[in-house]
């Protein structure tokens, strides 16, 4: 067990290292990073000053050392536009993104789990076909377009919901749906296959042999067990959601991390772009580690396998 966790933590650290190398390497190899780090319209003298200040006139490995040591101090640089540290900016936007992601997640589970169960109860039946259509649409529709159509119908034509901004729960409905649909589709697929697996197991057969009614077998024996993988994935998906909501946040002008990234692009505020991407990668690497360890704690087969 200890060995397994040690190995996982090692991989995780390696991934974090590779992540920083990737980001560092791409910024430097694709041209002069000074042009990205200075504000647009800076003079030649400014550029030289920046090069010196960030150590860009030093050898690459020294530069990487500087880059890493400032990262280790939690220093992601300074935003040009807001004139505040990137980390501070990030943390101020994070709650909004988490809020949106949590509501979208709840919505996607509310839609995904029941429809997945319904689809699994009768494979090939109406609900199964309907569910397939629904998931296919969810996976094929770009979320920004779903968002725009929602605005058109509910804000422009019907005038029921505010089209952008944040503040009231009403502001949340449309972005949460636009973001949640894709994940509802994923959750439905997952619930369906988990249910099918459980429904084929010995103990469900036994429950049926005992003469329990179908509803009880499904609700009590099958559903509870099928829920485990679904909820585990929901945990991972929540982190992913925070990081993929860029377009939805832009469409609805939701002041979260995605919107921050977009502002970073629009204002050519490179430290912000770099910071947001670095944190996203690190967050997902770490969550993967936590999930791996949790699985190993729950299921001895996994830790014995490696």
């Amino acid at each position, binding site marked *: 067990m200890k060995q397994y966790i040690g190995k996982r933590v090692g*991989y995780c650290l*390696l*991934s974090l290292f*590779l*992540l920083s190398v*990737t*980001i560092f390497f*791409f*910024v430097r190899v*694709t*041209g002069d990073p000074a042009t*990205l780090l200075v504000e647009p319209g800076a003079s030649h003298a400014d550029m030289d000053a920046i090069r010196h200040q960030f150590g860009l006139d030093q050898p690459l490995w020294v530069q990487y050392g500087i880059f890493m040591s400032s990262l280790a101090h939690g220093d992601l640089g300074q935003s040009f536009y807001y004139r505040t540290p990137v980390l501070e900016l990030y943390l101020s936007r994070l709650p909004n993104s988490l809020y949106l992601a949590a509501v979208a997640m709840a919505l996607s589970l509310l839609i995904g789990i029941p429809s997945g169960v319904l689809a699994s109860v009768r*494979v*090939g039946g109406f609900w*199964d076909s309907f569910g397939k259509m629904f998931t*296919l*649409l969810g*996976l*094929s*529709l*770009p979320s*920004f*377009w779903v968002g*725009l*159509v929602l*605005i*058109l119908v509910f*804000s*422009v*034509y019907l005038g029921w919901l505010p*089209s952008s901004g944040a503040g009231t729960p009403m502001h949340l409905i449309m972005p949460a749906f636009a973001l949640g649909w894709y994940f509802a589709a994923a959750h439905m697929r997952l619930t369906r*296959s988990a249910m*099918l697996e459980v429904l*084929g197991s010995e103990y469900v057969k036994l429950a049926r042999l005992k003469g329990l009614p179908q509803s009880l077998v499904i609700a009590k024996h099958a559903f509870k067990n099928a829920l485990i993988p679904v909820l585990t994935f929901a945990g991972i998906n929540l982190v*992913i959601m925070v*990081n*993929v909501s*860029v*377009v939805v946040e*832009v*469409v609805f002008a939701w002041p979260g991390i995605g919107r921050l*990234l*977009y502002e*970073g*692009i*629009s204002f050519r505020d*490179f430290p912000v*772009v*770099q910071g*947001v*991407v670095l944190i*996203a*990668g690190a967050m*997902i*690497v770490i969550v*993967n580690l936590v999930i791996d360890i949790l699985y190993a704690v729950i299921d001895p087969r996994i830790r014995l396998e490696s």
Partner: protein
Amino acid sequence: MTIQAEIIVLPSSSPERSSLRLGDFPLIPALIIGVIALVAIFANLLAPHNPEIGSLTARFRPPFWETGGSTKYLLGTDQLGRDVLSRLIFGARVSMVVGFTAVIFAGAVGTTLGIISGYLGGWVDQVIMRITDTWLALPALMFAIFLAAIVGPSMWNIVIILGLVYWTRYARVIRGEVLSLKEREFVRLAIVAGCSKWTIMRRHILPNVINSAIVIGTLMLGVVIITEASLSFLGVGVPPPEPAWGLMLSDGKQSLMVGRWWLSVLPGCCIMLMVLSANLLGDWLRVKLDPQLRQL
């Protein structure tokens, strides 16, 4: 040696099988992709107007069936008076070119690295797989935005960026397949017969994983097109005045609030049709070509 005969069809006992069999050939999706491809190829002949030049006197004309619309501009005009239909037609070209080249580029890189990683094993495998894992951890769209912010927008930059972001998806799956392939008799025989490592990878392993690469490619096509549209939508994709669907959507967003629906709904419909068709085709191919990928 009949390599094709080596592919085992797994006896599948799961109920997935019957339900996935339901569609034989997805005719409509294939037709849609075919039509979009033809439109893209013959865009010059089909488009009634120049997609990049409009007349400012004819701004914001609605489609012909709405009041104020005329048959001169069948699907209306945008904020610069450019014909929406012509822009959609030329937009098909952008989507097709970016979609296909990016998928092929990513596929070539991913398949090559997957085969090398799986067949050679050892430290090569470790290095490639650790990089794959790390890059997979970066959310694709964010990674693409990051790269686009560095290199600046242009159509071919977008193709390279999408290739760099998505090769990992191929490498993962292909490596797994190679791991089981290399234990098989025909590979051992090839080793005994004195084939070099490169010959085995090229002549014996590659033909056996190419099916999977095609399946992943088809499934990736939709993802790549959505990503391209998202990048264009965010202003780091195909630069204006190029008529990309994502860019049109983004322009149309401004006038959505005053009810000019056609500027954003129509390009969105095109993206949806294309992606939906690619996904349906990919699902079918997956079942048809590669039973081992059914769980994907």
